């Protein structure tokens, strides 16, 4: 009897899948409808997926990361040759793939410009890995209008201007997690959408930390700043006491001095009794819920 991969017993498939990386696993699902069903059937351990979108010239780089590793999975190209032979289908999306000779681990995909491949790919992969809404999008560009609805967790990798960020977060306001990697020095922050995000991490902030502190309207935040003064904390506490219906639950301020944090030193400098008197019954001990 002729044997191929699909004719192997299911327990053998499970053994083979346990040796495959998420990238290989994903590529196997793209081989045919039957392989997709087979791969999807397998309940694998929960994966935290990260999708890295980067656009250079006419190319969009799409990388799938999982288990703290990043596997560059696909390169999307906006031109599409209709007469191509290697056609790949993901839902309604028709794409062409080809491999790079110098990057054998990358699948090179072309797609129709007027389609939204990222959204389809995101749906397909979250479906494949049984992780709906669990994908973190790592974005180098905010020009990803096609995926706005899918994005619930985002990491913005490059410096973008205030208007771009405002537009992006206005379009997808219900973010579960937002992180901005590159520092930005905006002064007109009061009603900026970024400060209304529920869980926010801002890295490499420029001196206007106080604006971020007093205008933040989310629940949890980590602000990593270049310069940090005791005054900022005191001002934050004063404003916090006066606020009504403030959703803030946790806030970490981190100052980067040769990789070390100065926040502990500063908080040690504030006497607990003085702090208690200042904040009244809104005092929470360190690491409390």
């Amino acid at each position, binding site marked *: 009897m*002729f*044997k*191929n*991969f*699909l*004719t*192997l*017993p299911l*327990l*053998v498939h499970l*053994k*083979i899948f*346990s*040796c*495959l*990386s998420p990238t*290989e696993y994903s*590529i*196997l699902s*793209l*081989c*045919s*409808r*039957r*392989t997709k069903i087979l791969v999807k059937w397998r309940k*694998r*351990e929960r994966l935290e997926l990260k999708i890295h979108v980067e656009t250079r010239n006419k190319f969009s780089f799409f990388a799938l990361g999982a288990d703290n590793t990043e596997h560059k999975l696909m390169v999307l190209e906006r031109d599409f040759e209709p007469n191509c032979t*290697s056609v*790949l289908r993901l839902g309604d999306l028709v794409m062409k*793939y*080809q*491999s790079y000779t110098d990057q*054998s*681990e990358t*699948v090179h995909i072309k797609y129709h410009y007027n389609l939204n491949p990222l959204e389809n790919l995101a749906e397909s992969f979250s479906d494949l890995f049984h992780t709906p809404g669990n994908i973190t999008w790592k974005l180098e560009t905010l020009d990803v209008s096609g995926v706005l609805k899918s994005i619930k967790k985002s990491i913005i990798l490059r410096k973008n201007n205030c208007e771009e960020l405002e537009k992006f977060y206005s379009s997808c306001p219900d973010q579960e997690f937002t992180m901005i990697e590159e520092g930005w020095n905006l002064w007109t922050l009061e009603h900026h959408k970024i400060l209304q995000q529920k869980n926010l991490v801002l890295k490499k902030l420029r001196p206007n930390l106080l604006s971020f502190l007093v205008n933040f309207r989310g629940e949890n935040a980590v602000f990593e700043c270049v310069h940090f003064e005791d005054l900022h904390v005191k001002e934050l506490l004063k404003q916090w006491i006066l606020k009504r219906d403030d959703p803030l639950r946790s806030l970490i301020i981190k100052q980067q001095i040769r990789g070390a944090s100065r926040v502990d030193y500063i908080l040690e400098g504030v006497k607990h009794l003085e702090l208690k008197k200042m904040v009244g019954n809104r005092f929470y001990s360190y690491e409390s819920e």
Partner: protein
Amino acid sequence: MSVENAPVVDVDEAAIPVEKKMYYRFESNDKKEFRVSELAIQQSETLNRLVEAMGYTSEDVENKPAIAIENIDGKTLKLVFQWCEHHKGEAIPVDDGSVPKIVEIPEFDAKLMDIDNGLLFKLIWAADYLNIVQLLNVSCKKVANMAQGKTPAQLRRVYLLPSDEEDEAAKRAAQEAQDPRAREVEEEFEERKRQGGNSFF
């Protein structure tokens, strides 16, 4: 081919018993016979239980017919028994359920599995059927390694996967094989269409 005329394949020439050891005889579905040591058989849980249940003596092994393994051909069974002879006496690993699975392929196993992919899938199937845990581990690892750096098209070739169109064609063929009249009806329908008839009935 009768059992008496079947070719006898000695799997491990060097392992011919110096002291008195029991060598069981097995027969593949294409009537090839193999002599395998008692210790090597222990690598296969299925065969080990089988020979234990049979309770053969040394005389029984020589005089009674070889034990038939109906589902596996001679080429595959030869590889299986070569592997068992090489790894005889080794401890059988217990699956700890860890993912990703860390399996190292020894040099001998790598050479043994340097075969065409169709035969490799048969070997895996046989290892699963005979419940040879370590052979199954290394052969699955080999198949997983084959996927490294492959595009879907390359993977289709490596894993001998049919395309969606081929799957559809196979499905249609299977349906027609079940009901030969269906094909005749379809041909008749096509013929009438060509003749310009609007109604089939």
